């Protein structure tokens, strides 16, 4: 019987090629979209699970409030790891990292160096801790010597052409020589250590051995013993504060007690985060690697689910609409002795078959589009063809989908009354289409919802990009790593300033672009108590900084070479004023210092107040900031006045090559660096965009099929109307307007939902748009236009048919 069902199903699908195509295509696209999203989510969820004992590994985080600033630190003090191991029997082992950002690496004796983007100091326990095998070298001793380092396979091959490199020497940042003591496989893409390629022995980092409890610079991981429960570790962890932190702080703030510390509103709260949770659940401000959020996973899951439901609804709609054609068959089969169950099975077989054909198409679509998808998500996802579990899930999902989609049509059709259908009263059996209408409304509601979401995300991004940031980010070229210039740095600056289309040049390590920065505590002259500490960032800049970045001074003055005293001057931003509790004018001339504990602290004098500019993401508020002049810049910013950028860049590179021969010239435009802060929003908007298009497309496929069906069902009516004198436009209007009513209802349903959901999303931004009325109008107009285009083809086609033909055919 089943074989027979398949045979019949195959034939009827073949016979109704157009209908089958619409159904299969819609399902295939929905499945491909959902499949890609599933693979993406699966990849996101797989982070760091590949490491041995990953389930026992935790990182120590701390929420710190001290002097006005709140920090969500992912890093700990250098002695933290050692103390944990000493004090807590649950701790089996620890490992610390101190990241160094990018470094220039070259083989000793070689001319050119190349940039390694992610370099970190790591404790010697690194390999054993994470169960990482060395390709060459000894895992216990590899990272013990002061100047030893371990490379990944790719890095080793880059510098030496092989992995057989034990004992070879590398020069880092043109100053330090390191010896290669091991090679490991490249870090998995879906791991926290992705793209880290150089691991330096912690022994070479002097600070790592200091009993400094006040600075948090070391990512500290602990591995608990198998018997330990992390809950039992969390509470005692807080004891670190009283045992180590306070005694250390008392050296600087004599008389400080736990009580007075807490009374001043300050706190340090230690807690752990599971290693495998970091990628999706960490809320820390700085991480060793870009993390994502569960919110994105939820949004994506919803979109994936939407797509599948849309496609499935399409299927139901088209199938029930199409059942008009199958009504007679149902009647005949019933007279041949078929019962409802037989028919249900038959139709489910058909939908199952369609689902499987769609699956094949979906796999093809996925294979073709996956490289692009990987390109823009920065992942290397592959379809896991060799995994039985994947196939099992895929088949199960396909069968489920076929069943889910086929169920309603099957039950619907199996109920047909044989007497009626055989008499030709099939359209009666097909019903008034209330369910179908509801399904169309449902589909369009989802589509309109997605349109609204996409528009809002785009608007917010646009807002971010065009917002007055307090500085001008356009036309600024950032040249990274100018340290190879050494003493020629100023000469380089002078040379560039001579260029025709260069307006200004400044030297600094700090720019309002994403990078890691920390706050320091300052004290106003005269205060002696740590309660009045001012947490602010201090940026080392040169005298041309404000001019080059086009920042405004609202009080006082900019730095000026004429004043020798400007070496101890500081310019603060407006956000610092409330903390100092003064107005901009009052702030001028005030003195602040980092060194409260010294006899003769060195003071900075406030000479100016700069208008607030955004240096963090627009998700966050602007914090306190001070700028002072210091000569230790590693980066340079060049403001161009327009013209041919590529020519200017080439010119600057020429100057660079004469002054720093053989050194890589690394640059980027500031606006690009700025946008990278919003990478996750950018990606979200792209994903929204793609899947909105897909969902609209699927909804249109369904509408197209329904319109075709509707036109067919009403052929006779149309014929009669024409004979009675109706014009083509009158008839196509009649046919179209019915569908537009449905789209109208969908719009009414989805606009409030979209408004609500997107306001929730916007809450994450300190600086955000108001969702305007225009968004809704635009979404509605878009949906209606798409619907008109889809439906009118069928309507017009039906309306221009010669009435004689249609009347005779009945």
């Amino acid at each position, binding site marked *: 019987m089943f074989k027979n069902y398949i045979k*019949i199903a195959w034939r*009827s699908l073949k016979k109704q090629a157009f209908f089958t195509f619409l159904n299969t295509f819609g399902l295939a696209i929905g499945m491909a979209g959902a499949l890609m999203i599933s693979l993406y989510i699966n990849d996101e969820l797989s982070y760091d699970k590949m490491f041995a004992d990953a389930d026992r590994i935790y990182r120590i985080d701390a929420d710190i409030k001290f002097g006005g600033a709140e920090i969500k630190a992912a890093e700990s003090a250098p002695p933290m790891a050692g103390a944990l191991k000493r004090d807590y029997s649950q701790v089996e082992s620890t490992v610390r990292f101190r990241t160094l950002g990018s470094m220039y690496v070259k083989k000793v004796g070689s001319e050119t160096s190349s940039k390694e983007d992610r370099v970190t100091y790591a404790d010697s326990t690194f390999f054993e801790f994470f169960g990482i095998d060395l390709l060459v070298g000894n895992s216990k001793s590899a990272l013990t010597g002061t100047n030893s380092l371990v490379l990944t396979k790719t890095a080793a091959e880059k510098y030496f052409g092989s992995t057989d490199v034990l004992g070879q020497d590398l020069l880092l940042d043109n100053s330090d020589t390191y010896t290669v003591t091991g090679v490991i496989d490249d870090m998995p893409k879906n791991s926290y250590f992705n793209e880290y390629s150089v691991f330096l022995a912690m022994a070479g980092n002097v600070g790592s051995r200091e009993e400094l409890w006040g600075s948090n610079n070391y990512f500290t991981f602990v591995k608990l013993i198998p018997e330990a429960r992390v809950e039992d570790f969390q509470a005692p962890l807080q004891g670190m504060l009283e045992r180590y932190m306070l005694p250390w702080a008392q050296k600087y703030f004599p008389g400080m007690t736990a009580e007075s510390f807490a009374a001043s509103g300050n706190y340090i709260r230690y807690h752990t985060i599971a290693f495998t949770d970091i990628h999706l659940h960490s809320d820390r401000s700085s991480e060793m690697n870009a993390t994502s959020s569960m919110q994105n996973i939820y949004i994506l899951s919803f979109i994936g689910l939407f797509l599948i439901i849309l496609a499935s609804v399409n299927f139901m709609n088209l199938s029930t609409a199409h059942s008009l054609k199958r009504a*007679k068959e149902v009647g*005949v*089969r019933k007279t041949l002795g078929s*019962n409802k169950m037989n028919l249900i099975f038959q139709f489910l077989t058909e939908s199952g078959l369609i689902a499987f054909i769609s699956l094949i198409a979906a796999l093809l679509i996925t294979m073709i589009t996956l490289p692009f998808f990987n390109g823009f998500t920065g992942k290397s996802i592959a379809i896991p063809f060799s995994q039985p579990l994947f196939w099992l899930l895929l088949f199960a999902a396909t069968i489920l989908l076929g069943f889910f989609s086929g169920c309603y049509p099957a039950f619907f059709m199996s109920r047909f009354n044989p*007497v009626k259908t055989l008499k030709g009263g099939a359209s009666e059996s097909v019903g008034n289409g209330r369910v179908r209408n509801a399904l169309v409304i449902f589909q369009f509601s989802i589509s309109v919802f997605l349109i609204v979401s996409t528009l809002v995300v785009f608007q917010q991004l646009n807002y971010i990009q065009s917002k007055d940031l307090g500085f001008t980010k356009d036309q600024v070229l950032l040249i990274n790593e100018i340290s190879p210039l050494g003493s020629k740095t100023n000469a380089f600056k002078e040379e560039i300033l001579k260029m025709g289309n260069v307006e200004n040049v400044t030297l600094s390590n700090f720019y309002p672009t994403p990078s890691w920065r920390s706050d320091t505590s300052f004290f106003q002259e005269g205060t002696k108590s740590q309660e009045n500490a001012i947490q602010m960032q201090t940026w080392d800049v040169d005298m041309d900084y404000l001019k080059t970045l086009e920042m405004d001074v609202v009080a006082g003055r900019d730095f000026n070479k004429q004043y020798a005293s400007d070496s101890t001057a500081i310019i603060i931003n407006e956000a610092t004023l409330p903390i100092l509790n003064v107005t901009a004018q009052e702030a001028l001339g005030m003195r602040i210092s980092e060194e409260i504990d010294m006899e003769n602290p060195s003071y900075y004098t406030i000479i100016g107040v700069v208008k607030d500019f955004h240096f963090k993401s627009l998700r966050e508020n602007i914090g306190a900031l001070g700028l002072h002049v210091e000569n230790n810049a590693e980066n340079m910013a060049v403001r161009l006045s327009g013209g041919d950028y590529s020519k200017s860049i080439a010119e600057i590179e020429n100057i660079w090559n004469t002054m720093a021969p053989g050194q890589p010239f690394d640059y980027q435009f500031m606006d690009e660096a700025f946008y990278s802060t919003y990478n996750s929003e950018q990606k979200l908007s792209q994903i929204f965009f793609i899947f909105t298009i897909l969902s609209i497309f699927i909804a249109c496929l369904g509408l197209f099929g329904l319109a075709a069906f509707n036109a067919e069902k009403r052929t006779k009516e149309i014929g009669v109307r024409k004979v009675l004198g109706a014009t083509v436009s009158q008839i196509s209007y009649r046919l179209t307007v019915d569908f537009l009513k449905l789209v109208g209802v969908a719009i009414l349903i989805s606009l409030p939902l979209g408004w609500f959901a997107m306001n929730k999303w916007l809450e994450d931004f300190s600086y955000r748009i108001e969702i305007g009325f225009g968004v809704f109008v635009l979404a509605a107009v878009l949906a209606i236009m798409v619907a008109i285009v889809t439906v009118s083809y069928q309507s017009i086609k039906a309306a221009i048919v010669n009435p004689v033909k249609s009347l005779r055919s009945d």
Partner: protein
Amino acid sequence: MLLQLKNIFKWVQQGGQRVFLLKDINLEVEEGEFISIMGPSGSGKSTLLNVIGMLDTFDEGEYDFLSESVHTLKEKYRSNLYKEYIGFVFQSYHLLDDLTVEENLEMPLLYKKIKSSERKALVADMLDRFNIVGKKDLFPTQLSGGQQQLVGVARALIGKPKLILADEPTGNLNSQQSEEIMALFKKLNEEDGVTIIQVTHSEKNAEYGSRIINLLDGRKI
């Protein structure tokens, strides 16, 4: 006795009123009878046939088929009873267009869950008997009306039913084709003892049968 209808009423509600399609029908049919139902258009012939064939329900009265009371049976049992004992022939043939002649014949056997080898044999027998072996791989649209009805009759017969119900089986056929089908019915009735109830407008066709039932406005006269 094959079947018995007792005081069957069937009606529909139209504009708040009952419109009777069948009124107080009493009918006894013995095995081996060949009955013709006649009457003007709209008199309820098809309705009665569908009720007898269990394709349609009725609102009042009792219906016994082989001493089972149909009106109290669940749909599943009714369907089984139907599958086992009844074959239908229609005016417009109602063959399944997607299936070949051979597959059309096989269909009722599939629903009766008959084994593949047996099905093959029965289909081959039928093709032989109706002289349509050469047409077995053709689709219905490739056959003439008469040939299609031949297949329709063969399909009704293949499950070895006790009762064949035919609603104007020759309505769409020319007189020669029509005679062939009627002769076939007669032969089936006489040689195989199949009970036949046919609806017809033709006096000539009615004469093939042993008894005529006349209907007018849903009432037996």
